């Protein structure tokens, strides 16, 4: 699908010189919606960070009590708390924007009727609450 564009040509009636405008590197600052999109995409980094953090925790557990104590001390340092609090806020933003987008992508049919988007959204929140409750239950039981 290539363009028959004649860039540096001199204008004649039969060789129109089209104007091609380049997209700015800072296009994502042009509209609040574009900025929200970039923010949503960037918030996948905190998701990755928590996955790495969990793996580090498991490694510390496997390596024995001394390594675990060291990991806990490291986690209690002010800058680690700051990183984790900021990451958590961004993670919640990621989850919520993901849920908001879900009904548009997921069209569910029950028999012949289409499930309304609001219900799909509610389903996501319900699953989130259920999963969180299960984790809390596990922690409290221990």
């Amino acid at each position, binding site marked *: *699908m290539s363009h028959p564009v004649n860039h540096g040509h001199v*204008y004649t009636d039969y060789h*129109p010189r*089209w104007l091609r405008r380049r997209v700015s590197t800072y*296009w994502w600052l042009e509209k609040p*919606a574009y900025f929200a999109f970039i923010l949503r995409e960037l918030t996948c980094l905190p998701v990755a960070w928590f996955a790495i953090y969990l793996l580090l925790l498991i490694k510390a557990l496997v390596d024995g009590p001394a390594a675990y104590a060291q990991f806990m001390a490291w986690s209690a340092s002010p800058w680690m708390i700051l990183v984790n609090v900021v990451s958590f806020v961004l993670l919640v933003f990621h989850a919520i924007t993901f849920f908001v*987008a879900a009904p*548009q*992508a997921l*069209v569910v049919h029950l028999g012949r009727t289409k499930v309304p988007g609001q219900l799909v959204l509610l389903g996501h929140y319900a699953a989130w609450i259920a999963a969180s409750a299960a984790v809390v239950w596990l922690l409290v039981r221990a």
Partner: protein
Amino acid sequence: MADRIKLQVARYRPEQESEVTYDEFEVPCPKDWVVLDGLNHVKDRMDGTLAYRWSCRMGICGSCGMMVNGEPKLTCATFLSEYAPGPIRVEPLRNFPVIRDLIVDIGDFMRKLVTVKPWIVRDEERPLSAGEYRQTPQEMDEYKPYSMCINCMLCYSACPIYGLDPKFLGPAAIALAQRYNLDNRDQGSGERMEVLSEHEGIWGCTFVGECTKVCPKHVDPAGSIQRYKLTAALESMKSFFVPRGA
């Protein structure tokens, strides 16, 4: 309310200049005038050299799409009074090469559109004597929203991905492919998948969602693309676990 409003109209005259310049026109602003009425007033009374496209002035033909104060709009459905006291900046649709003033080249979209075969594809046509292809209202509802597309290309203008990568198939072409994929009379989804599941097809989309917000016909191209991603992923899983011909 002010009875006149200023239009800042983008001009590009390739025989004279190599960049966009802006001309200012003050036009009447009655409450029932749309931006297109303002442009027609300029063309008829003030500067006959102004070039722009329009036809039906009722949101059906899809010719009069332009950037109005930075947002892609159908100028026949955008009232001047909404922008009072002005000024209103009118520019050619973003992400397309400009031919002259407010006219952009739409060839790229037209070439892409045919690649998704936006028509009903049958493995074998039924003879006329077999009667019509019947469809229930529910079956029609599946694709009806996507069939409302008027090819105005506002969605391409709103899509930063298309701006950055002109090879991207784009919102309207994919929504129109889905219009036929979801039609129970159609059997061409396999053929369309080859084009749609390419990197420049659905996978180019990162779900910015602006195409859906600017669509004057509520087509929801962003939703159609995400839906199709799910279909394509399931199909490729199926072909992995169930070998061809099995």
